[in-house]
């Protein structure tokens, strides 16, 4: 009980101490967007008849007719009231856009990370058990292939083989077949919402749609996870406590899983946390290739058209998620190694 209380208190402290960093991100992104070349008003007034008047009107609508310090004050007070502004691109409030799109990105990233971990940890362990062997080289080759093929290439290849040639995968557009009706929205995660609604057919359809994009993202991150597992397993296997455990005649399985792997898993958790945060933002290409309605492709489109509000909202969201992920990693640390949570 006290352990739990201490964890919560620690988490609270960590969250508080991250506020200044979030504020910094906020101001920095705001200024960065204003420094970038390209006038969004001119871009959005690109209809065949948009003249000076229309440009001015859009500028006013976006609040760009005021000086930068004034804009910043307005922006901060808006954020304080939970208003992230309105996207010119979709015409919707940014908050609504992000709320609709974040579950799509999270679902995809979680699935990809899960696939990557399920593949990478055993691969890393196997490679570490027989370093320098044929298996070790095989794992290395696989990792190199995964990491050197960019996600959009593997994505397009997967589509070509499984959708175009074999017809096994559903058409690679969006989270669900356009003809399937959606379940009532609870979590925003389709695979969970369908289960809640008890619609197994829909659930399977959503999962099928998820497999290819998740796989192409997972391929890319298996390498760092497997390499870290291998390295840290090697250290752990060579340490005194493993030698002792072996010498007292514990079973091979118990030695490897309970003693070596549990000690080796800490750095893997750290890397998984970092990998997760980067994947969430960096899966733009996968989202594009699979027409996945996620936040990353949304932010990229906004950036290309200098649509300030969505980009700022996205960066803030990413910063927030990064803080949360770090927190979760810390808590996982505490569970994997109770010594960490002392103090």
């Amino acid at each position, binding site marked *: 009980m006290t352990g739990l209380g201490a964890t919560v208190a620690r988490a609270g402290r960590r969250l508080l101490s991250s506020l200044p960093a979030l504020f910094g991100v906020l101001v920095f992104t705001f200024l960065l967007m204003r420094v970038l070349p*390209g006038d969004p008003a001119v871009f959005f007034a690109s209809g065949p008849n948009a003249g000076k008047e229309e440009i001015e009107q859009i500028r006013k609508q976006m609040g760009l007719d005021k000086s930068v310090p004034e804009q910043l004050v307005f922006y901060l007070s808006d954020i304080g009231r939970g208003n992230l502004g309105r996207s010119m691109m979709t015409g919707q409030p940014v908050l609504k856009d992000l709320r609709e799109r974040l579950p799509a990105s999270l679902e995809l990233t979680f699935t990809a990370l899960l696939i990557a971990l399920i593949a990478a940890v055993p691969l890393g362990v196997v490679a570490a058990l027989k370093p320098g062997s044929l298996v070790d080289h095989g794992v290395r080759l696989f990792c190199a292939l995964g990491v050197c093929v960019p996600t959009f290439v593997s994505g397009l290849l997967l589509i070509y083989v499984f959708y175009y040639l074999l017809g096994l995968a559903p058409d690679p557009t969006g989270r669900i077949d356009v003809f399937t009706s959606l379940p009532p929205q609870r979590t925003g995660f389709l695979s969970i919402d369908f289960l809640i609604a008890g619609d197994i057919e829909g659930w399977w359809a959503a999962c099928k749609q998820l497999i290819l994009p998740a796989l192409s993202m997972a391929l890319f991150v298996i390498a760092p996870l497997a390499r870290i597992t291998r390295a840290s397993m090697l250290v752990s296997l060579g340490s005194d406590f493993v030698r002792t455990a072996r010498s007292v005649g514990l079973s091979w399985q118990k030695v490897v899983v309970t003693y070596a792997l549990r000690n080796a898993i800490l750095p893997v958790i750290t890397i998984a946390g970092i990998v997760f945060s980067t994947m969430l933002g960096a899966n733009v290409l996968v989202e594009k290739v699979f027409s996945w309605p996620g936040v990353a492709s949304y932010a990229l489109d906004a950036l290309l*058209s200098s649509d300030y509000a969505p980009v700022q909202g996205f960066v803030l969201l990413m910063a927030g998620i990064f803080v949360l992920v770090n927190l979760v990693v810390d808590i996982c640390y505490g569970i994997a190694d109770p010594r960490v949570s002392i103090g």
Partner: protein
Amino acid sequence: MRFVSFRMASSVLATTALLLVAAAPAQAQTRVETLRYVTGASVNTLDPNIPGSTRESFALSMSTYDRLVAFGRKQLNGKWVFDLDKIAGELAESYDVSPDGLKLTFRLRKDAKFQDGSPVTAEDVKWSLDRCVTAPILGKAQLLTGSLTSADQFKVIDPLTIEVTLPKPDKLALPNLATVYPLIINSKVAKEHATPEDPWATAWLKEHTAGSGAYVIESFKPGEQVIIKRNEDWNRGSPDKPAFFKRVIVQSVPEPATRANLVERGDADLVVDLQASDVQSLEAKGKLKVISTPQYNSITFVSMNNQIPPFDNVNVRRAVAFALPYEDMFKAALFGRGAPLFGATWPDGKPLNGIYPFQAPVKTDLDKAREYLKAAGLPEGFSTTFSFNVGQASTAEPMAALVKESLAKIGIKVDIQKLPDAQMSTQINEKKLPLFTEGIVAWLPSTDYFYRNFYTGNQRWNYSSINNPELATIAQEARFEPDKAKYEEDGRKLNAIHFSEMPQIPLWQPNQDAVMASSIEGYTYEFHRQVDYRDVSRK
């Protein structure tokens, strides 16, 4: 195994529709009556008048709203295209133009109803047209080109008759009423959602429709997809019956290769914005219907800033015009899919007719280019930049490489600049780019319209910043020229000035490549360069 059966099936069953029926018997009925249209961009507003609206939004509004009148269609080289000269009533049962051309009278259909069941009245038409010329929306600038500028010009005569008065007999007044913007809105519904700050309900209409069109919005997810369902009461189409498809799904698929795969596998029915290379390979396979129409109301060009040295010298502009590798560019950028605007012969050195865009008598002739450079006092050449925007990279990138290579041969060193779209628009607006490629489209492609909008004044669309008083005067006069022969003569003069001044170099009119399942019929190339869902049906 599945692959083999797919191949066999496709050889046995001729149509993709049938294939889908076989693959999904449970959904067969709805699938045949559903059109799935995939596109790279997205619908971002339900009212096309909102600044920033996309072309997909234009197309959608054509189906959800009616206008007073609509363009007819005609055959051009065996393909259906919109017909600017044949304007038929849509909500108007008939219309009259007074002999002096100053009065247009529209009589509304008695049976026309809005989607909420209330009848369409002249009051609604007046409110909608007033909105178009008064509210701060895109329609304002468009209707201006047809001398429609003030709410006083629209008068309700009786509940089914409305009169439009013009200050001058303007040829473009009537066609303007058939464009995307002057949509007829259910004014009662709209007024309910108007606020003191927003008397024209622009905010509400952005996310809701209140029209009388052929389709009703079923679901709208900006940036992802829009699903519309048929309005069974609608009878304003040319064959006087509701539109063919019960549902239309307009879905955004950003990756062009995926769009190509979808239509090839029969999962999508229709797509217009594929990469030229994909269209070519799909056409070669012969399973799908490919309708390629040169976009006869658009031009892709290389523009020079006529105010920035050395391009302020006409001989430099001519030198560039004779140094461009036209054929290679056409092949590299478009795989030759389009109508070239170069390589003509003008027997007596004069324009063949008064139509713009015209095919210019330019071709790659490096000796001639070098002579012009010498005449400009720059025999050694100079350095400059060639810009294009990222959004057009798939066609502009290979073009840029060829321009650089070819201009280097006459001593012009070119630095290629690939700019993000917003940055490119800004630089164009500020007239900062010396040499760049762009494309233009006119909804109402008449010669004077092109010249007035793209070659006069200090505004953004005058890409070349040309300032030629003679050209400006003729273009202005031609606008109100009632005599066809004199108008043609004006057009010839304008074309002659264009060629001798060479403000920019027209390259080609790219094809609109519509790729569709072989069962789809009725596709028509429309002025807004999107599919009008009311045109198409499944056989």
